[in-house]
């Protein structure tokens, strides 16, 4: 069995030597190669496959952002780690769409080892390589064309904090990107539980604008196939409704993760369907919800995993279609998301592709945590659905 292969790129030979020595303990588990610059790295990648690349940003000739962008196109299945000293804010934005994970220098060997070990895990058990290939190439998750106006308004100089929060919490791509970046010290200290709102507060509007702008630039305004557009809009409305409702379902400390997981529950679908029309390399099966044979969900989970989102979020997204049997001690995140999802299935915002599972829903609603809330759940679900509908309405031209 061949060992996983890791490629380390830095213009300073001393740094490469140091990495080589401190990672010596892994030499039995990984094959490690050290390259002194982007050109050498690309040449090595062309010769033999790698699983992970770890690169510095500030390098002469081809800088790290350029290198990783190139790799995302030619070798999307390679996980990309940025390892760099301080970065200027405008450069940080380029970097934010180039890598999967971000580490600041100086970083200790154990942190780097932890990240690499995580990235060597592939979440899709049945489609390890394909799911990684599709998810790995994603640099930014697109906004639905109907909502592009919201992002453009966010980029305006007079956009204020509350507008930024509202926009971020209704945009799947921006939520995912902010959660990804908040894990790294590059973009500011991370608040403990990382609700999107507290991340926006911590980063500040200008940084959020820059991040949104960087992602926005990567997508063309072309309207995709109308059938697909409607499909995505339905999925979006379902996600927003679920996120709105789960606030009442989840317990206080679990709310931030539950809301994020609810909004991101169909990120895989969004990513898989947002390919340029007529791309000869990919085949989409809407009925089976697969792309190139890989279930949308697997792609979504792999993406969130690559981006290093908190585990409870990744787990809840992964288990959205798995019947939940929560312990009496509490729903936690996944069961809360599942409950909210099933409640929304009873409303206009339902996802037509999946069933309603009324029995399971009844069982979940009888959990002491939910009974004690004294909430009329069907009405609450209707209200959440209505809110989600209104939000999409205001975007209509």
């Amino acid at each position, binding site marked *: 069995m061949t060992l996983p292969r890791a490629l380390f790129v830095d213009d300073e030979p001393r740094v490469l030597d140091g990495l080589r020595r401190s990672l010596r303990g892994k030499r039995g588990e990984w094959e490690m190669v050290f390259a002194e610059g982007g050109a050498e790295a690309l040449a090595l990648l062309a010769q033999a496959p790698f699983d992970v690349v770890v690169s510095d940003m500030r390098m002469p000739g081809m800088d790290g952002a350029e290198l990783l962008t190139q790799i995302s196109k030619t070798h999307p299945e390679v996980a990309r780690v940025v390892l760099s000293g301080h970065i200027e804010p405008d450069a940080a934005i380029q970097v934010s769409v180039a890598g999967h994970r971000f580490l600041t220098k100086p970083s200790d060997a154990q942190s780097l080892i932890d990240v690499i070990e*995580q990235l060597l*895990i592939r*979440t899709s058990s049945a489609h390890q390589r394909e799911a990684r290939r599709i998810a790995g190439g994603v640099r930014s998750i697109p906004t639905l064309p109907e909502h592009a106006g919201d992002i453009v308004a966010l980029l305006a100089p007079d956009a204020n904090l509350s507008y930024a929060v509202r926009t971020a919490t209704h945009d799947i791509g921006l939520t995912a990107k902010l959660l990804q970046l908040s894990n790294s010290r590059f973009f500011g200290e991370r*608040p*403990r*539980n*990382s*609700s999107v709102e*507290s991340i926006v507060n911590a980063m500040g509007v200008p940084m959020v604008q820059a991040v949104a702008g960087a992602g926005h630039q990567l997508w063309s305004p072309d309207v995709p196939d109308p059938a697909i557009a409607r499909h995505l809009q339905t999925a979006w409305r379902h996600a927003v409704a679920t996120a709105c409702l789960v606030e009442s379902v989840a*317990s*206080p*400390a*679990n*709310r*931030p993760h539950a809301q994020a997981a609810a909004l991101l529950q169909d990120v895989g679908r969004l990513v898989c369907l947002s390919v340029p029309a007529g791309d000869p390399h990919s085949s989409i099966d809407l009925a089976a919800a697969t792309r190139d044979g890989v279930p949308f969900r697997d792609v979504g*989970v792999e993406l969130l*995993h690559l981006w290093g989102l*908190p*585990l*409870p979020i*990744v*787990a809840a997204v*992964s*288990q959205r279609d798995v019947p939940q049997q929560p312990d*009496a*001690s*509490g729903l*936690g995140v996944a069961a809360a998301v599942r409950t909210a999802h099933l409640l929304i299935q009873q409303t206009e915002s339902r996802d037509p592709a999946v069933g309603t599972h009324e029995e399971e829903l009844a069982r979940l609603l009888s959990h*002491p*945590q939910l*009974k*004690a*809330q*004294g909430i009329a759940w069907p009405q609450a679900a209707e209200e959440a659905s209505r809110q989600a509908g209104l939000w999409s309405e205001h975007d209509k031209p």
Partner: protein
Amino acid sequence: MARVLVIDDDPAIRQLLTDVLEMEDYEVSIAADGLSAVRAVEAASPDFVVLDVMMPGLDGFGVLSAIRALDGEPVPVLMLTAAAEPDAGSRAWANGVDYYLAKPFSADTVLDLIDRALTRQVNVSDL
């Protein structure tokens, strides 16, 4: 290292939980009554709080409201209650705990619960 705050007036419980959690590399701090508990939450910013409902002075629910009133994102709270109280559970949920266990409980259950809540136990490969 993740920090757990154990709030219980019963020294036996405090000791039991401290031992079990510290063995699993948690950093444990303790408080024996409500008032010092609230101060401890403010000062130490724990990642998880284990809270007994029955305590002298400010009782568990009082502590819970006080904790929830603090600035910042809500800290996960596990409330422990005596099984004899029939409605303790629903009262706990209604007051906004995240987890709830009735006594008697095993320390391993608590450990398991904390591991899951702080996502130590769930490996990505288990998904």
